[in-house]
């Protein structure tokens, strides 16, 4: 591929041929998987990834082109932010050569879906307090514990799991990152129903799950730096569009259509809301573009993805409330089958999650303040205690 514009032309041709005028929302799940593989096999997906692991080794400007061209077809593909943007990116940073060649090409092609096993009932914002145990047993680890808020666990094949491998070290020094096969015996996945009525998240119970000893990513008891990098990738993927999709979505065209349908396009309040939605959404695109350019130029970024994550959550709320403003009464009571009104209400019920999942807005602000702006850190009295003592209520 000679340049971004040739890439753009090829993408357009591919989308026109494969999806055309179809409503991407109506593409059935099995067809989505096929489309993802076909896009990858055509050499058009994840082109900024190294060629050795299934990418094309191209520059950040190609990702921008992809985001621009693919945005309107996003729902015709299985979501890749977690598998590729977070899990594969973390493997690329910390995996052994054997792990990278074994896993990454399949992740990029869409042959395997991955998720993260991080939060626990007692470890939300404070992930350093995870208590799920992994204990050595011959050439395996035996994992026991409970994870929660796991997105896409039922669809995923593998997970990167943060587990405690040493109770006697301080909390951040006794955890490891394991690759867990979610089809293995002892894995019990139970959907969690959210306020939208959907179940995007799950509880995952791990009961004597056996994991090969070489399935550790990074060092044993060195899981914290892996997690830190993983969260960095997560915020970049959710906000900077490193894999295409963001946590929010470009609601502007739909909101304009909604305003037109309700005959409210001339309403001053509606116009102000529409302009603000456009501005905030476009600013996030521009910020993401600058982040990708800096990353591509090899500049040290630090956890700036947290800035984007805060903005993403705010943008989701802004769009959701604009929809309700436009719909008015029709957004709170609608005819069965009025999908537009139903979706407007769904966006409203969806936005609170965006300021919590992937790290709360408050935690993101702490990260920005402490690790981007260099301000003093919050006091952490349990930091240097052996985990056994700091979490005595959970580990006995």
């Amino acid at each position: 591929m000679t340049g971004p514009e040739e890439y753009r032309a090829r993408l357009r041709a591919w989308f026109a041929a494969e999806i055309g005028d179809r409503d991407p929302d109506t593409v059935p799940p099995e067809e989505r998987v096929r489309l993802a593989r076909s896009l990858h096999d055509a050499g058009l997906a994840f082109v900024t990834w190294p060629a050795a692991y299934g990418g094309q080794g191209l520059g950040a400007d190609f990702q921008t082109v992809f985001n621009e061209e693919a945005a309107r077809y996003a729902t015709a593909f299985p979501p890749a932010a977690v598998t590729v943007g977070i899990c594969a990116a973390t493997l690329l940073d910390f995996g052994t050569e054997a792990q990278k060649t074994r896993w990454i090409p399949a992740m990029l092609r869409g042959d395997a879906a991955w998720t993260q096993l991080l939060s626990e009932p007692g470890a939300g914002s404070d992930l350093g307090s995870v208590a799920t145990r992994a204990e050595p047993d011959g050439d395996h680890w035996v994992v026991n514990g409970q994870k929660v808020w796991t997105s896409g666990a039922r669809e995923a094949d593998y997970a990167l799991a943060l587990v405690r491998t040493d109770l006697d070290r301080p909390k951040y020094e006794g955890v490891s990152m394991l690759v867990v096969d979610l089809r293995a015996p002892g894995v019990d996945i139970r959907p969690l129903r959210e306020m939208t009525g959907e179940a995007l998240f799950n509880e995952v119970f791990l009961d004597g799950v056996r994991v090969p000893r070489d399935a550790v990513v990074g060092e044993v008891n060195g899981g914290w730096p892996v997690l830190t990098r993983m969260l960095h990738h997560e915020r970049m993927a959710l906000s900077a569009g490193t894999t295409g999709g963001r946590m929010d979505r470009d609601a502007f065209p739909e909101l304009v259509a909604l305003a037109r349908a309700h005959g409210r396009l001339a309403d001053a309040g509606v116009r102000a809301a529409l302009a603000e939605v456009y501005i905030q959404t476009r600013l996030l695109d521009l910020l993401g573009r600058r982040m990708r350019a800096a990353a591509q130029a090899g500049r040290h970024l630090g956890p700036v993805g947290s800035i984007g994550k805060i903005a993403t959550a705010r943008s989701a709320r802004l769009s959701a409330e604009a929809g309700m403003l436009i719909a008015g009464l029709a957004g709170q009571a609608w005819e069965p089958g009025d999908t537009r009104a139903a979706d407007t209400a769904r966006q409203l019920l969806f936005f609170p999650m965006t300021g919590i999942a992937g790290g709360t807005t408050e935690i993101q602000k702490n990260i920005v303040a402490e690790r981007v702006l260099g301000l003093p850190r919050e006091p952490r009295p349990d930091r240097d205690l052996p985990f056994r003592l700091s979490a005595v209520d959970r580990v006995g």
Partner: protein
Amino acid sequence: MTAVFVPEVLDAHREDLAATVRTLVERQSPPERLRAAIASPDGFDRDLWTVMAEQVGLAGLLVAERYGGAGGDLLDVVVVQRELGRGPVPSPYLSSAVFAATLLREIGDAAACDRFLPGIAAGTTIAAVAAADWDVAPGPVAATPAGAGWRLTGERSPVPDAMAADLLLVPVAGPDGLSVFAVDPADPSVTRTPLEVLDLTRRQARVAFAGTPATLVGPPGGAGPAYAASRRATVVALVAEQVGGGEALMGMSLAYARTRHQFGRPIGGFQAVKHKLAEMALDVERMASVLVPLATEPADDTLLHLAKAYCGEAYFRLAAENIQIHGGIGFTWEHASHLYFRRAKSTEFLFGSPEFHRGQLLRHLGV
């Protein structure tokens, strides 16, 4: 260009230009000289202007080389204005080197270019454009033919940098379109009355014309597109100034939050203050993200209106939060906070309010 927190990726030439202007501002516009400049009759530091023009070539940055300029582009201007905005440096740069120079270049009237551009490029002619809003409304300035030339009657207000100007370019909206006239502001028929200004770093005046001799620049009624292009460049430069100011405020607030102690620890360790600063970083990063696309993708009018709508408001939020973080010292005359605070609100309204630009944005999006 300044690294904010997401590092800026610029070519070596622009990195050098940014560093040069930044050093110049740090060395030649320290707080005491800035205060003296603001209090001076001109409202800016003439010695500094001379250095900017003669040693760094800023006055002629956008002027073609054959007129003694550097033949630079809008990205160069953005780099410069970002640094001048950090100061903030009071100077006629925006009026003369950006607005007037671009207007003359875009009209392309050979006689006017020959006559005015060398002086503008050298900094010896300070030019101002008699406009501060987005649109040039018809009247109250009227142009009438008089012999080989024209005469202007009426008044325009406010006009930035009018008092310092050696040359006034007056856009006049007529039934046949927009015309631009060159006027010598020293002519006895011109009355310039200084206005009280919110932004102490940018002087403005009311300019009255009483049968003032004027030279038509370009064809009568044919300057509309040229005027729009120069106005665009001016707004882009103004946004860069806002971004630079926002970055300066971020730096000022951070430095204070790290060093000011209360209750035995830096105030920046309190979560309420940390979160305020994180919000400021969010604004500053988003402001900075518009600059390079704005300067390099000139066809995109939605981005121009977006940037002008957003950056003015964000700059003012930063300026208000900066005062809050500084506490009592923050609202004193001696502290620099209010210079940015004043400038932020002033630039929010120069060349169109956020509300106006939101309307234009939707119009360009076909809504």
